[in-house]
């Protein structure tokens, strides 16, 4: 099998799940005839027909609302948000209706909400969001943000089969930039499990999504200087795999957290707290963060480059941490 992009891996997951289970349906804007703004859903309509590939008006609240209703019928809808920034338009449906449903009255909502996220493609303030923390702070949801094609496919399959509402974030910078050979058989990747991408002894870098690749590149460069960084890819942000984080921190005794989300209230703060609560005695230095700046995502290339964290930011922070 030739290597496929992350975008193609996501498309395969949806396609294969729809082939496997007639209760899987898709709903969203321009996902049918057009095949989606990024062509993630290309070919679905031809294969599965109008009833299972539902094009909607520009109504995010209706998309999520209707998906909830269909899930109450025992279906497993996959709702696409054309750009994840527009998730703000249906925030109420997600946080109040979807997330609280099982807790309040025992009605499971087996649905997936997915959409292109993240910056680095000059999308500007409304097409570049990393909205994970609004939803990581919402009990009842699961939040996934994969960094590889293999994980994207396996995690999306798990999300579709899960009985809970899952927010599946797809980093659009990675859509066509990474390629990977995928196994031919039906596989899944478990939700809630982080993975160690690179072993190291000197410090732990906890990261996810596009920053995982930045962190790996930085780790290779650090290795040349004799600093061996361990890179932990979270993959799932909610529930957070505290065990893997703590295990790594106890091994390296230093923790650097790298994310593309803005700094204040980013998941780095939560991970730092997890480390303090669970591995305080093991820490040999301060917990450092490399994140985006606390501003909206700017449009013009030099501004966005400044806004986003990059390899040299990771290198600088890692070197500082290595001094302890």
């Amino acid at each position, binding site marked *: 099998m030739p290597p496929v992009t992350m975008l193609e891996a996501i498309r395969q997951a949806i396609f294969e799940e729809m*082939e496997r289970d*007639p*209760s899987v*349906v898709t709903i969203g804007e321009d996902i*049918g*005839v057009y095949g989606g703004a990024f062509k993630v859903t290309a070919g679905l*309509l*031809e*294969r*599965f*027909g*109008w*009833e*299972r590939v*539902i094009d*909607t*008006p520009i*109504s995010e*609240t*209706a998309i*999520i*609302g*209707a*998906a*909830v*209703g*269909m*899930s*109450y*019928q*025992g*279906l*497993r*809808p996959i709702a696409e948000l054309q750009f994840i920034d527009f998730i703000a338009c249906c925030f*109420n*449906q997600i946080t*109040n*209706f979807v997330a*609280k*449903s*099982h*807790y*309040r*009255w*025992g*009605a*499971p909502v*087996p649905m997936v909400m997915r959409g292109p996220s993240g910056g680095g493609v000059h999308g500007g303030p409304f097409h570049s969001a990393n909205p994970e923390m609004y939803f990581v702070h919402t*009990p*009842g949801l*699961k939040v996934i943000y994969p960094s590889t094609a293999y994980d994207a496919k396996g995690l999306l399959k798990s999300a579709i089969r899960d*009985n*809970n509402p899952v927010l599946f974030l797809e980093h659009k910078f990675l859509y066509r930039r990474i390629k990977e050979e995928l196994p031919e058989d039906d596989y899944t990747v478990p939700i809630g499990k982080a993975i160690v991408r690179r072993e190291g002894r000197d410090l732990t870098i906890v990261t996810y999504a596009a920053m995982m690749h930045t962190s790996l590149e930085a780790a290779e460069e650090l290795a040349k200087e004799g600093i061996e960084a361990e890179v932990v890819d979270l993959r799932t942000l909610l529930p957070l795999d505290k065990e893997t984080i703590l295990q790594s921190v106890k091994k390296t005794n230093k923790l650097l957290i790298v994310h593309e989300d803005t700094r204040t209230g980013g998941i780095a703060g939560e991970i730092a707290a997890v480390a303090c609560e669970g591995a305080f005695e093991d820490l040999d230095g301060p917990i450092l963060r490399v994140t985006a700046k606390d501003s909206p995502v700017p449009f013009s290339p030099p501004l966005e480059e400044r806004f986003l964290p990059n390899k040299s930011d990771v290198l600088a922070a890692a070197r500082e941490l290595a001094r302890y």
Partner: protein
Amino acid sequence: MSESLTRDQYLELYYYMKLNRMLDEQLVRLFRQNVVVGGLYSNLGQEATSVGTAYALEKRDWIAPMIRNVGGLLVKGYRPRDILTQYMARYDSPTMGKDGTSHFGDLKDRHVVSPISMLGDLVPVMTGVAIGGRYLGQNIVAMTWVGDGATSTGAFHEGLNFAATQHAPLVLVVENNQWAYSTPVAKQVPIHDLADRAKAYGIASSVVDGNDVVAVYQTAKEAVARCRDGKGPVLIEAKTMRMKGHAQHDPAEYVPKEMFKYWEARDPIARYEKYLTENDIWDAKTKASLDARIDKELKEELEAAEKSPLPPPELAEQGVYCDGCHTIEPEWKRSKKEVMPPQSSVKPEWEVADFGGFDLASTISKKAAAKGDNGGVPAIQSKSVRAETVASQELKTNGRKLSVQKSNGRAEKSKVLERVPFGRGPKGKAGRK
């Protein structure tokens, strides 16, 4: 007298309405005894709307009630103890104390979706239930209620528009009870009939006297039949009146006394009792035995509710996620093969002959001209609308006029606006001028 209802059904309508009201009164007593936790939202005066609409449904159909639709819950098979324990925050309530009021439901047997406090959100959700049911071949109808206030929300409009584009089997009952908390309907919406909202979405609608249970039932029955025939959603406006404040704490002093008087004279239960007597459907003895049954049942229900303990504190963090506690399997009423490839495969192309272009637009305007102001939208005729009730809509709205601000006549010179830098850039460089 309608031919479509049997005597037993007439009596059953009375039973549900009266039970609804007596339960309401019981809850007020419990509220005064401090047994109700939190707010209490009265259904008083709106029993005919909830009961009459829900009664038009079949067992397989779905409802999503709002807070004043306890009558609909009773019709769907819930018992007073469910509502009592919800208000009393007890462990045996349908939500085990995790939520209160009418915020509960049952996907499997009764097909009831729990509301949330955010108004209008049920419209898209029930659209999803409706199209999901259609996909599964269930031939169901989904019904939900919104108040006059909820018609101002975005979710109402997004949901209704989507339901219309999908021709979803959705009956949306707009329960116009004249007040959204303290805001009168005239301040909520600038139109006379909320049913007119349907025109913009190209769906059928009707106005009904919400305090006339037989009229409500017949209108709803027609709407349900229309939906089941695949003719798309129907909006019913039921004109009624919230006879108490928003909740028990609210004395509703903002409601004109004459308005209460007007509606008191049109009390849905008193009217229906008169109707049953005048049409020889019952006699004093039947009424007495029904009332006695309701009293007895309520007493038993209250005893059961009072026996229920408060929930154990450790329940607080349980049940956030489904960890395999539910098996999710849709109820297929059609062959799955139809929706699986190769049968499901289609050639994706536009189905509109003129690609949504000018021909379609001119057809619409021609139709509208031919049919009057209804924009070619089919309306279901509700014969039962009482002119007197509709006229009551013309409540005095202190005749405010919109004042249009005029300019002072002088043409203002266009000023060159100074640019305010919102970021000063790198050190040493002031914001660009």
